[in-house]
């Protein structure tokens, strides 16, 4: 890597620290709005435990001033201990690590689809501007974008799983879960599809895909419009540029002009957006994970937020922050790679 690229990356990573601190301060500020008893409610799941409220507050220091709580939390984090998630009854770090594969699997299969469909539809409707195809593809994309994700998910589930008994929720069917649990099936990445391929067990692989179909369809329909709109306007912009006329003047046929010149230039803004889309996937999957029983990081964070499981939400904030900065960094590097005019550093 060229030297200025390395300095650029270093500078961006240093930027990570203030953002992360900022995010955790934000979360702690929110905790300030809660009464210690409300935070103790997290530890009391049944009314018969309710009478121990005072002792629990004292034990977990829920009523200590916020800056002391923040200081304790930071010292813990530096030693790599993200604290205990009471909503999941396990270490926050373990929770994030064990839950991330589910979200990753959803993201890995839906993001490329979203980008590919988005680019294809965007290019198509730009080339055939103001024709029936243009309007049709835009309408399809906008429909996808306006559908409430939870409603779409549940209806899909009702039709396919309820009506026809296909595409059940969850990540694997029972027999596959048993196989995975039984230990013969070695888990490398936690992503069932990839692990199945490594273990050369195709029935588990097909079963995992079988469970992924509906959630991926839900996620894709919702996000395609985003990419499509940007691709369409960027494509239109390029088609009106002088170098396209020059390319045609050189005797290149329409297809080459479109594919080799217009599309390459039009992809630049799309790359930036897809980077942000991948980072934004975290809050996007919460609903899909809830409806389809995909116990991923989004579901865990949403659950923790509603139960005021502060250490969990803080752990999640760090995770989301790092992901956001990395996504932006990758997008910038991709940007510089594609568009030679931009020099990093």
């Amino acid at each position, binding site marked *: 890597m060229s030297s200025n690229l390395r300095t650029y990356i270093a500078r961006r990573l240093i930027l990570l620290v203030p953002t992360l601190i900022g995010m955790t301060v934000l979360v702690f500020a929110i905790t300030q709005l809660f009464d210690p008893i409300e935070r103790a409610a997290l530890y009391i799941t049944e009314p018969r435990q309710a009478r121990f409220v005072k002792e629990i507050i004292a034990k977990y220091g829920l009523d200590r001033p916020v800056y002391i709580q923040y200081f304790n939390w930071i010292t813990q984090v530096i030693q790599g201990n993200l604290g205990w998630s009471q909503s999941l009854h396990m270490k926050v770090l373990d929770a994030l690590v064990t839950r991330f594969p589910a979200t990753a699997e959803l993201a890995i299969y839906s993001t490329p689809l979203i980008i590919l469909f988005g680019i294809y539809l965007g290019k198509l409707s730009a080339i055939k501007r103001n024709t029936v195809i243009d309007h049709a593809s835009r309408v399809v994309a906008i429909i996808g974008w306006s559908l409430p994700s939870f409603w779409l998910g549940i209806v899909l589930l009702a039709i396919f799983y309820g009506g026809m008994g296909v595409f059940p929720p969850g990540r694997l069917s029972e027999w596959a879960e048993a196989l995975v649990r039984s230990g013969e099936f070695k888990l490398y990445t936690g992503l069932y599809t990839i692990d199945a391929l490594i273990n050369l067990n195709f029935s588990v692989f097909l079963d995992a895909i079988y469970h992924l179909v509906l959630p991926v369809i839900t996620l894709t329909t919702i996000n395609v419009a985003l990419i499509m709109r940007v691709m369409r306007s960027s494509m239109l912009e390029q088609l009106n*540029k*002088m*170098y396209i*006329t*020059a*390319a*045609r*003047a*050189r*005797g*290149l*046929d*329409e297809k*080459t002009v479109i594919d*080799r*010149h217009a599309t*390459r*230039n039009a992809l630049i803004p799309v790359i930036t957006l897809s980077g942000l889309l991948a980072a934004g996937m975290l809050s996007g999957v919460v609903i899909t994970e809830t409806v389809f029983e995909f116990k991923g990081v989004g579901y865990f964070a949403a659950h923790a937020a509603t139960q005021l499981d502060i250490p969990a939400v803080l752990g999640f904030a760090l995770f989301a922050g790092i992901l956001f900065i990395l996504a932006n960094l990758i997008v910038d590097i991709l940007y510089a790679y*594609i*568009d*030679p*005019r931009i020099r990093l550093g």
Partner: protein
Amino acid sequence: MSNKPLSLEEQLKVNDLTVRFYTYEGIVKAVEKASLKIRKGETLGIVGETGSGKSVTALTILALTPSPGRVEDGNILFRKRDSSVIDILRMNEHQLLQIRGKEISMIFQEPNAALDPVCKVGEQITEAILAHRLREMVEKSIEVIKKEKDNEYDLWTRLETWTYKEMLNNPSDVRLKIIQKIPIIRDITKRRLRQVIRQEIVELLKLMEIPDPGRVIDAYPHELSGGMQQRIVIAIALACSPLLLIADEPTTNLDVTVQAQILDLINRLKEKFGSSIIYITHDMGVVAEISDRVAVMYAGSVVEVAPVKELFRNPLHPYTKGLLESIPRPGSPLKSIPGTVPNLVDPPSGCRFHPRCAYMMNKCKEIMPRLVKVSEDHYVACLLYEGESDD
């Protein structure tokens, strides 16, 4: 609609070309019955204020009229290399591909905007060569392999020669298509072809007097200076030695010193390639220096055509007179043509110059003047003059 045939020594003839733009504000009559003709090896200067339809005419010659423009009337006769005459406006897309870049090519006003920012300069020149001179290049590659006696039986070379033969004999062979799809193999089978083309480009860039062509080939457009970029654009245009070169104000954006070099370069290339040139500009000085004959355009139509000396010495059309007088001369007061360029949505009736014309007569408002021959090779479209209409 006068479609007089093309005489032998004429390269291109534009007859009564009419182009309309259908925009929200109404129908813009950009080009109204414009007529031009260029002889072989001649440089025709087209002069006129901005908005007089110069660029639209130029682009229409390449059938690249920008949207939402549409050609309403007229035809463009062109004598191809095999001296057959065609009407460009009646060509279908496939036939046009054989002409653009090969028979007629174009240079643009902003060199920076005319080059794809994300493609290396070498790639953009290669495209032009591959589009038209593929056969020639493949044959050259085969020679190169023949010369390299020693690795006659190396597997890759045999594959490469096979590909070249296929390219020549039946390019639509299925196996060929598959090989081109596989990323790595596709490059290996064309190593020598790439070398040959690179060599060809280096020669071409040397012709354009570009120092250190090796570096320039692998550079990106934004890494070069304005003058250098324009030379690349010219190189692309002349890659397949076209019969007609259209230059749309190539030097306007360059500073004066570079402008002179480019003009000088274009002249020398004209001799070497023997192509005829249409040089569009609004700078009378440049026209005087480079063109053999000059056509003056105003508000979408050609108002006067004459050899350059004749035009400067004896301008007939009032607008041409105005133009020549408005060239600033040290010591004499500045003069300019009253009024502004007409709005082409509903242009003035009859002769479009009449609102600004000092010799305006009543009939100027009714009749649209046609080009008439006033003297040898001197035509003017003005009701002041009589003469039989040529073409």
